[in-house]
């Protein structure tokens, strides 16, 4: 099959249970999808295993891969499992407890036993340095070499090999931080030193400090991982460069990622949204609500033409200042456990059976009924399960688990399973709708795009409750993150905090600020040494009315940048969002931001052939019990569906990476890019 001249693009998404591998042949549009079990200890080994399978089963030679991009959860796991390096921290005199005090607010309300937050750096490894700059950069306490070196030496004696430096006001005036770093680097060359201002020079000392601390905390493991991956991939025969995905939905070379691993923390959810946005762009549907439902989580995002960004992101309880694709967690996924509370009321989640022991029907030791067991017991999922029969489902185990609560409810296993799905749907609904309100969007103008292993299974049940224009299931919904890796652009963000009244700012200063950011951005792209088809800059500023604290991010139109223009853009946008604008009110400019995008060449999706071999399995039938009654559903194979096909629910569509359930009342059609489109039957 593979011609000598064939060129392939490879996207890999390493998840908790599976490593998704997606290959696209550049000329033909042929897609090859693989799921390989993830290796927790040596995550790179699952990639190598994927490469071997590609060579052996699909005749894709590693040498023929011309683009290789991947995302990993290693960073986020290292952080959440508190398994990182010993970091030492130097702070300004009087501010040793920057990490201890956090922003005060605890994440759990109404809980007298809310856990005491434990800092990433124990207090003994935080040392104050005699130094202080004022907000205007004036030296209040000069910095001294001897005290910096003494502090660093103490940290090193305590075992720290990573030192983060965070001094007040360094986002504007970084000379003390730079000086301290230079002294330490000279005296202790084998210690990894990072300053808060070099990573992310934004005002807000706790959050900025945390960025540098996290970078040090996860850095050692990430650098080792990236280095090993490069070596092993080369041994396996690949010749192209390897990229890593970022929280902002872009990619960077793994060499750069080793220095700034903190930028990869939220890359997993971001890649899926990038994949969804790519599909939306291809098919000309620019208003999408994405629903990513896997075994342990449900995430959502809203795409309106552009991929949405948020500057207020969190990983666990840690705020992460860096811009990231705006994704919200809204539930616990297919592994959510169903249970009865003391009053006998049926509940679903928030606890998940996770990958181990997993749903009962997976036969990995799980005995509690889960949402996945409900799919299995109702006939929604085939006993053959996913991955071409590699993950068979034990329906009896599902029914036994369901009976444990069904008996108490006085319901059959089917009725219990049906109730579980209805409660699960109500759970997702209750989380999703307020998130739409937060973004100010109305569902009925949007398509609901489902992905993840369980997203396509559940999406129509949700669509029944939610007014959306239509439902969209892309060709390989279980590997949409890998598709996102494969099509992502080079992307980097730069920030400078101004925090200045617009009237006190001159055009010259404003233009100079942005010119500086743009120069940094272009320099970054230059250093990536990648051929891009196009480069563009997104310039924006966070602004608010003086005395108010609701800020808006204003993306600049393609017009000359002046303070007057900036003020006008802000008033206009404010009026659009809040319905009125007080144009006499002074304006404050907070953050100046530049994002650079180096557009990579995209595969030709118009010719996409998502399924290498069309299934010859005939359309069959199966009894499905759902929404209070038993119906006969047609069972179809996704790979047998062709553009232009239409059929009505109740139906089940089975494919390698997921099962799509289409209830009664919906009709579906297949578009020319092999997307499955569902609409309510009139």
């Amino acid at each position, binding site marked *: 099959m593979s011609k000598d001249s064939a060129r392939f693009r490879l996207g890999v998404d390493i998840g908790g249970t599976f490593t998704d591998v997606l290959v696209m042949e550049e000329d033909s549009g042929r897609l090859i999808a693989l799921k390989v079990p993830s290796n927790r200890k040596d995550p790179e080994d699952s990639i190598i295993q994927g490469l071997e399978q590609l060579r052996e089963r699909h005749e894709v030679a590693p040498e023929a891969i011309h683009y290789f991009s991947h995302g990993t959860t290693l960073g986020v796991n290292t952080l959440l499992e508190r398994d990182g390096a010993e970091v030492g921290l130097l702070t300004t005199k009087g*501010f040793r407890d920057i990490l201890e005090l956090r922003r005060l607010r605890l994440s759990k309300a109404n809980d*007298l036993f809310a856990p005491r937050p434990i800092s990433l750096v124990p*207090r*003994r490894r935080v040392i104050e340095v005699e130094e202080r700059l*004022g907000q205007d950069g004036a030296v209040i306490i000069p910095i001294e070499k001897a005290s910096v070196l003494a502090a660093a030496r103490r940290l090193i004696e305590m075992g720290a090999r990573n030192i983060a430096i965070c001094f007040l006001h360094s986002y504007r005036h970084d000379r003390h931080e730079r000086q301290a770093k230079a002294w330490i680097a000279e005296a202790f060359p084998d210690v990894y030193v990072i300053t808060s201002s070099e990573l992310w020079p934004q005002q807000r*000392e706790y959050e900025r400090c945390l960025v540098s601390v996290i970078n040090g905390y996860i850095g050692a493991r990430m650098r080792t991982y990236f280095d090993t991956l490069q070596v092993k991939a080369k041994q396996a025969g690949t010749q192209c460069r390897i990229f890593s995905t970022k929280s902002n939905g872009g990619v960077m070379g793994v060499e750069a990622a080793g220095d700034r691993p903190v930028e990869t923390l939220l890359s997993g959810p971001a890649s899926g949204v990038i994949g969804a946005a790519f599909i939306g762009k291809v098919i000309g549907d620019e208003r999408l609500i994405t629903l990513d439902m896997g075994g342990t989580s449900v995430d959502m995002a809203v795409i309106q033409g552009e991929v949405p960004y948020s500057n207020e992101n969190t990983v666990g309880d840690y705020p992460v200042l860096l811009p990231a694709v705006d994704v919200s967690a809204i539930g616990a996924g297919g592994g959510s456990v169903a249970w009865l509370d003391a*009053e006998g009321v049926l509940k679903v989640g928030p606890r998940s059976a996770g990958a181990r022991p997993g749903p009962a029907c997976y036969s990995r030791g799980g005995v509690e009924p889960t949402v996945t067991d409900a799919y299995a017991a109702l006939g929604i999922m085939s006993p053959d399960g996913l991955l071409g029969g590699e993950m068979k489902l034990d329906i009896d185990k599902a029914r036994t688990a369901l009976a444990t609560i069904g008996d108490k*409810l006085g319901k059959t296993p089917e009725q219990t399973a049906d109730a579980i799905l209805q409660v699960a749907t109500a*759970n997702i*609904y209750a989380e999703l709708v307020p998130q739409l309100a937060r973004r100010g969007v109305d569902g009925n103008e949007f398509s609901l795009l489902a992905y993840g292993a369980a997203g396509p299974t559940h999406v129509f049940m949700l669509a029944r409750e939610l007014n959306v224009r239509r439902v969209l299931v892309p060709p390989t919904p279980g590997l949409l993150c890998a598709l996102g890796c494969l099509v992502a652009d080079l992307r980097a963000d730069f920030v400078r905090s101004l925090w200045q009244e617009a009237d006190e700012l001159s055009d010259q200063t404003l233009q100079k600020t942005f010119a500086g950011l743009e120069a940094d951005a272009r320099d970054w792209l230059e250093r990536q040494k990648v051929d891009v088809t196009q480069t563009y800059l997104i310039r924006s500023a966070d602004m608010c009315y003086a005395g108010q604290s609701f800020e808006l991010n204003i993306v600049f139109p393609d017009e000359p940048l002046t303070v007057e223009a900036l003020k006008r853009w802000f008033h206009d946008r404010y009026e659009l969002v809040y319905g009125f604008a007080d144009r006499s009110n002074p304006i404050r400019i907070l953050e100046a931001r530049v994002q650079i995008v180096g557009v990579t060449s995209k595969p030709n999706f118009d010719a996409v052939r998502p399924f290498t071999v069309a299934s010859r399995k005939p359309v069959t039938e199966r009894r499905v019990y759902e929404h209070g009654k038993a119906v006969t559903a047609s069972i179809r194979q996704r790979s047998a569906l062709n553009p232009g096909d239409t059929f009505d629910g109740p139906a089940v569509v089975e494919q390698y990476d997921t099962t799509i359930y289409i209830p009664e009342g919906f009709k579906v059609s297949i578009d020319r890019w092999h997307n499955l489109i569902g609409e309510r039957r009139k």
Partner: protein
Amino acid sequence: MIDDKIGLEILSNRFQAIVDEMAQALFRTAHTVFIKETQDYGAVLVSPGGEVFAASRRYGVLMMVGMPMDDVIRIMGDDVAEGDIFITNDPVSTGGMCTHLNDVFLWKPVFRRGKLICYAWTFVHMSDVGGRVSGSIAPSSTELVQEGIRIPPQKLFRAGKLDETFLNMFLANTRTGEQNWGDMKACIAALSTAERRMAELLERYGTPAIEKGIVNVLDYAEMQARRVISGVPDGEYRFSDFIEADMVGQGMLRINLKLTIAGGEMHMDFTGTAPQVRAALNLPSFSKTGHWMLITGVVNWLCTQEPNIAYNAGLVRPMKVHIPKGTLINPEPGAAVGARYSTSHKVCDVIIGALAQAVPDQLPATDSGQGSILMVAVPDPTTSETKVSVIQPAVGGSGGRPVDDGVDGTMVILNFLKNVPTELLEREMPTILIRQYGLREDSGGAGRYRGGTGSIIEFETHAPYSTVTSRNMERYVFPPAGRLGGTPGTTGYTLLNPDSNRARDIGKIDILEMNAGDVLRIGTQGGGGYGDPLERPAAKVWDDVLDGYVSERTAREKYGVAGDPTTGLDAAATEKLRAEMRKARGGKPLKAFDFGPVREAYHERWPSAMHDAISAIVQPMPRVQRQMFYRALYEEIDRMIDAGEKVTPAQVPAVLARIQGGSPERAPARRAG
């Protein structure tokens, strides 16, 4: 009885979606600082009978369960039509729903085919509603009319038509009219959202199912609450604590509780609580069952014991309350109420203190008790305009818990407050320099589980006439108590120009004017410890020493842990020390509560029976006399004790008669702080 155990969870999720969506719509459209930074707003759904049947657990204030809407619904009577929106902020006529004038409530009936189904309800804390001071609230206000404009319950919209005459009159009487209207519009947007969503839900499930669902979710929460309460041994539990109103010349104000647990209900009798005061500390609860500002502690306890508990007014049905009229927490109409938060938090502490006697392993030791916001106003020398900014929330540590240490510098109960980045503050207020913001080392009470440390905020001003305010300061006299062998935390302090020859301890702040070059240092309270300090693993104590939470001296003297910074923990010496300390206790049981020497001396001087006698004798008097003679009795008995006389509770009537025989018209002079 709930028959549909599946439908219940589905509908309660759908109701939850509506209130969360309302809260998001309100938050997104509002634009004032109170909403954004302190989340002081709320959105709920209310049954036709006036009970909150769904409330957000994530957005806005997390205290709306137990807001009584029944009185105001009754007052508005049958004149309720589609398109109406009601408004009020009046504590006097709403029977405990409004508790100060800054909280403005807007609500809207939801109809289906002409039938009233429920109400959508919102409130926002407005930055200013008029009155004698900017921001409307001052602890020293003596009557409600000083605290802003009162809006008795009325229609803002009548069948969709705005009453502009009323609106203009209201806004003209506030300092921030435009912003207030913006916040009202945000409420209106939220109410419309709820109306639309309820209509969809009624369409989907039908009126009978929704009406039944409303009844069911309330009953369900009540069942859960009763089940948790049933786990508490029946009995009577007494506790009292004191509001330190010395700052407004009112001495110590006692909150007294007799908590009776019986048959899955809690009965809270606050007889013996101090009379209402001529200061803004009164809490107008109207003695309502489960009043929201009385039961924060209990609701937190229920939610901790049963994390999946339904969050609605059904929870508070079993919380019966009795409060004599005319007391601090059930004042007569017209009392100043602006700064009622201190009082509310103290009530929470008192209930926790009583409940902890029944279920000691379910409640934390006392927290810092101070939910104060430290503000500074600085005049700009060129424009003469005054700039106001929050410096930090001045809160302290939480108490040790039966499962974990207290949280350092953070209260677990008031945990939604956020601090202010120093970089932001200094940029905003260039004449203010923050010299320190960190933990107050060695301030948490010792215990098996250590109390959270307080914090230190120290700043310097470079501007003349810098005015500092910090309402709701508390626990400068009596520290947070330790529990079950844990030792008390530490009291707060305020030092003007510390480490200089001008150093002065100035206590709680009402209003303080600072000059250029002055430095102010505030140390907030460390929480009480929980459990026997000698039971805390020595390694953990030593870790605390290495991390500087605890001093070597405290480790040795309170925990019996010895070591040396260079050689580490000395296990043998520790064992010996702990054995000696255990022996020195002589088999005495651990104290259930350790209040610390200052408060124990106060108890010695002012036994409970004395407080009871004074409260009882003034209770029947008209308000002015009640306040006057209450203070006069304390001052006279204080004087008598100082003079070496022995005073018993039985003598109180005689002392009163003597005072009254003197010059009854003369009110005792207000003491300066």
